[in-house]
């Protein structure tokens, strides 16, 4: 599984799957765990404000968005998505239009009766596209004007004309030839060409149609303006939609005739402005128990439970399980708190995801120590008989292809982050003219401007335009250089230089912009480029260090065996020489550097004092 020399996947396979030491991954786990713990502990005072039922992004809005947010289909070919119905974006206008839909009868036949005028108007104001484009344009303008006049006629019928004027209108429409001087309002062109009977009939349709409009004057205006401005080529579809005749690919896409269906349809339209039936997919693939918990005690209980899991993850106990739990838990916070996220949450997710994939608990963890304990116990119990796996475990962390895969994923992702960030900056004018640095250095909300000393320094610097120009230019060019060159140069011998430059960049961002946690995550990610040997040399126990000890134990006594295995597991520096007395001497004896043999609790105390790994806990020796 681990030998990649002969693999058929070539250099890419070797790059991703060659086994590697998981120590770097273990170190990254510790740092990530600490930052994640801090990040989530920082939620505590604001937990209800960010995650509760009445949070800034409350349950109602969050659940609605998560369940309903529509995704409109995008055709692969040249065709375009055509909505069945178009409504306005402006809230009061859309509300009026939706109220209009709501007020229409459920029965399509009744709707047809009520909206017959719309049909007549649309039919009467059709225009023909001809080979003569100019004539077509003239026809179109004429038809458009006539259609708008027809809509205005409804407005007049509904709101302007008195009963007496309506009577005069009827009389005028009945004249043959049509006598406009008798009409109290302007009569649309299309109506003039009709016979008196037809005109009278259309006038009745107009009055019938006006009854379908909202009673409120403003709402009525909104609906008529919406109809007047409806895309001209889609008017017929609008009518078909309203009266129940719209079919798309054999499917009924009209205004629903069922009361419940219509209510759901209009509710969706009110929120999202589109036809719910046309959404290719609805809702977002997010999960979080915070969307469902309402009781504050339970909310806090889950929160503290998660903080406990973060502690376990950090120390590397049951890390295969806790890494998944931490990944799930952090995503729960992120998915629920969509409005409170910033860059650090992205970095946090990237780190935890790759740690979860890799064996992050294989080194620098309690898991690794437990495995050493099991190996030591097996080896000591074997009485000198070699046990391959135990020897290997005690020799140090086992190389793993999964560790390498996780590290490579982290490295490649880090490069993508820099590349995207750098390239996208090239679109901005301020990065080209170097004012981006000033905008960052003097940002009053993020930056340090609130400190008088910093403001004083900045005022001192701006005294010289040249000096400030050099500083701003240097900061801008440095940022662009690091972000753009990092993905290329990090794979060369310049890797240490690039990592240092990256650390400098994020240190600067941390200080100037105050985005400290973001910077800490980026530092942790940059550790992914550190060789494991370097981390082992700097962080881990050096083999051969510490004073020498001798432990005599009786392998026939389970208690003694356990104690000896414990010491062996913790003896990373190889300080202790183990001697199996095999029944000649009972129990456990630890001979210290002073030559004195200790038994009982003294063994623990001496181990705490002498073993290199336990140096940080030396104080505890006095407690025991």
């Amino acid at each position: 599984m681990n030998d990649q020399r002969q693999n058929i996947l070539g250099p890419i396979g070797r790059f991703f799957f060659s086994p590697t030491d998981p120590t770097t991954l273990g170190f990254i786990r510790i740092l990530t765990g600490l930052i994640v713990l801090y990040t989530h502990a920082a939620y505590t005072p604001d937990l209800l404000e960010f995650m509760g039922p009445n949070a800034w992004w409350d349950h109602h809005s969050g659940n609605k968005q998560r369940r309903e947010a529509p995704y409109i289909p995008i055709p692969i070919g040249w065709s375009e998505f055509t909505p069945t119905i178009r409504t306005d974006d402006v809230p009061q206008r859309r509300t009026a239009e939706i109220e209009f839909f709501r007020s229409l009868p459920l029965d399509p036949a009744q709707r047809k009766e009520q909206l017959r005028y719309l049909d007549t108007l649309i039919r009467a104001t059709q225009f023909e596209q001809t080979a003569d484009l100019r004539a077509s344009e003239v026809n179109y303008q004429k038809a458009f004007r006539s259609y708008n006049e027809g809509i205005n006629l409804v407005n007049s019928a509904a709101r302007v004309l008195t009963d007496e004027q309506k009577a005069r209108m009827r009389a005028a429409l009945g004249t043959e030839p049509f006598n406009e001087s008798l009409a109290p309002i302007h009569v649309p062109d299309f109506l003039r060409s009709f016979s008196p009977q037809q005109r009278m009939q259309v006038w009745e349709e107009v009055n019938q149609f006006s009854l379908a409009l909202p009673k409120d004057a403003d709402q009525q205006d909104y609906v008529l303006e919406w109809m007047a401005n409806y895309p001209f080529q889609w008017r017929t579809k609008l009518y078909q939609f309203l009266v129940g005749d719209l079919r798309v690919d054999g499917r009924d896409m009209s205004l629903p005739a069922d009361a419940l269906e219509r209510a759901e349809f209009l509710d969706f339209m009110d929120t999202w402005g589109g036809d719910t039936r046309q959404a290719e997919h609805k809702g977002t693939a997010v999960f979080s128990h915070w969307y469902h918990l309402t009781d504050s005690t339970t909310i806090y209980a889950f929160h503290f439970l998660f903080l406990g899991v973060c502690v376990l993850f950090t120390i590397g106990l049951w890390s295969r399980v806790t890494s998944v739990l931490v990944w799930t838990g952090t995503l729960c916070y992120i998915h629920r708190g969509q409005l409170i996220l910033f860059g650090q949450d992205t970095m946090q997710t990237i780190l935890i995801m790759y740690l979860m994939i890799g064996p992050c608990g294989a080194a620098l963890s309690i898991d690794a120590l437990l495995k050493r304990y099991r190996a030591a116990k097996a080896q000591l119990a074997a009485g000198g008989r070699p046990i391959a796996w135990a020897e290997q475990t005690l020799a140090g962390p086992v190389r793993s292809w999964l560790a390498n895969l996780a590290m490579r994923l982290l490295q490649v992702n880090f490069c993508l982050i820099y590349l995207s960030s750098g390239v996208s900056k090239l679109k901005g004018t301020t990065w080209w003219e170097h004012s981006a640095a000033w905008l960052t250095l003097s940002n009053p909300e993020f930056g340090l401007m609130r400190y008088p000393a910093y403001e004083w320094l900045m005022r001192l610097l701006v005294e010289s335009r040249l000096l400030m120009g050099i500083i701003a230019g240097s900061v801008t060019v440095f940022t662009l250089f690091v972000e753009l060159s990092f993905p290329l140069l990090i794979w060369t011998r310049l890797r240490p230089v690039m990592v240092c430059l990256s650390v400098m960049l994020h240190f600067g961002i941390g200080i100037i912009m105050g985005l400290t946690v973001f910077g800490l995550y980026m530092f942790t990610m940059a550790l992914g480029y550190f060789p494991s040997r370097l981390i082992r040399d700097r962080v881990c126990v050096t083999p051969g260090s510490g004073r020498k000890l001798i432990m005599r134990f009786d392998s026939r006594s389970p208690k003694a065996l356990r104690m000896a295995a414990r010491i062996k597991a913790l003896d990373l520096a190889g300080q202790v020489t183990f001697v199996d007395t095999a029944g000649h001497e009972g129990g456990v004896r630890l001979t210290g550097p002073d030559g004195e043999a200790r038994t009982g609790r003294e063994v623990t105390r001496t181990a705490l004092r002498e073993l290199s790994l336990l140096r940080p806990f030396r104080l505890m020796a006095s407690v025991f």
Partner: protein
Amino acid sequence: MTVTDASPSDLHEPPVSAQRVLIVGLIGVGLAGVAMMLGLLLGAPRRGFDVHYADGPRALLACVGLFISGCAVSMRPGWFGGWLCAAGAALLGYGVGWPRPAGTEWYLAPPRDWIAGVPNSWDSVQIYFFVAIFIGLIGTAWTLSLQYLPELFKNVVGPKWTHVPRQMMFAVVMLGMAYHFAGILSAVTSPPPTPYLTDHYWKRVARPYLQFAYMNNAYQFYSPDPGPACEIWICVEYRKQTTSADQVAEKECVWEYIPKRAQHYKDPLGLAFYRRLSLTENIAQYLAPGYIPLPAEQAKVYARRDRARVPESIDRTAGADEKLIVIPRSSRDDLERRVPNDLVVRQVLPSYAHHIAESYARPGWDVRSVKIYRALHVICSMSEFHGWDTVSGTTKAGKDPYNASYYLAYFQGEFDKNGRLVDPTDPMLYWLVPIIQDKEDWKDRDEYYERGGFHHYFTDYVSRHARCNRPVD
């Protein structure tokens, strides 16, 4: 400590017995099954998202079930039994049901029964279980393949070919990586103008994965240009509860600024503060560039704006006539009105208003309204900071970055306590409510305060518009 190469299987620690793994795994499956049975026995709703009293315990039980079966996987990852148990627990948690009846595919809650360990009201958690089913099945297939394929190749193709299945597994991992990074690339290139291929890949292939794993960030930090941050200024108006209808209700108002460094920098690294800054950023999303409003609406918007008036003074004596004055317009058309996008208008702002009304509830008082202003804190230019006056060509006192006129306060609406926009046709809705500097700049902060501070130098139309004095300085 030295590092050694692991190779043959005898170099691995003897695994936990399959029987033990199976027992643990089946306990997990059993718990998820119990959650499902409880739902059936207690009559939990099988349709829609209605809440049932046993939902919480059932969800917990199902989650514990999945967790325990996950533990079984971790006990012996190389054995398919644990994975299969995890898939089983996930399946029981996610649930089973009949297909959606024809014609009801678009219903938010389709009229069909859905029986699951995780209650239907916890539908977001069901999504997690759905993904867990697939992971369980992939794990099962993976472990089975590694167990049996080498032997199969050895017997069928030849002994030299036993390594091929492992290489095939690596190839599968590489395909998974290609999917993963292609998804990230599609997210990176998705901000407008979006390439055709990105659009299709993101929407058709990568979206559910990227959303689920929160990998859909474009990483375009401070791009294309670093911009100014925002604050949210909120004015909550209370009305005292009265016992009789004739009694004139007493009114009060309070202001809240989000974020306020002194109040919201709660933890040493200021996460609480920065999270609130994100809240402000999320209402700074405007309609798409090129959006052309309906001409009739545009005319009405301007007509309403021209009619907008505010009281000349808020602190008038009771009974005195209120004198109204015009709110000056800005000389810069591009800054005058900023209409947020649909999501902000219809969901985010109402949610904020609802949160504020709930958080600021006081016994004996009703929250009458919540007025929200988004205050864009413009960054002063280098020349302004230096004090260079381009008109006169002289150097004056440098501008204070916290000069009140650098705050461009846009009125986002007045909401009731339920988060409903009171008047969508409010004359000042989404318009800039100015803070105007009337006097020359001050030399330093001492001079500023000596001369009377904010009220000496500025005319604050925000307070007048809200009819509530805003705390300044």
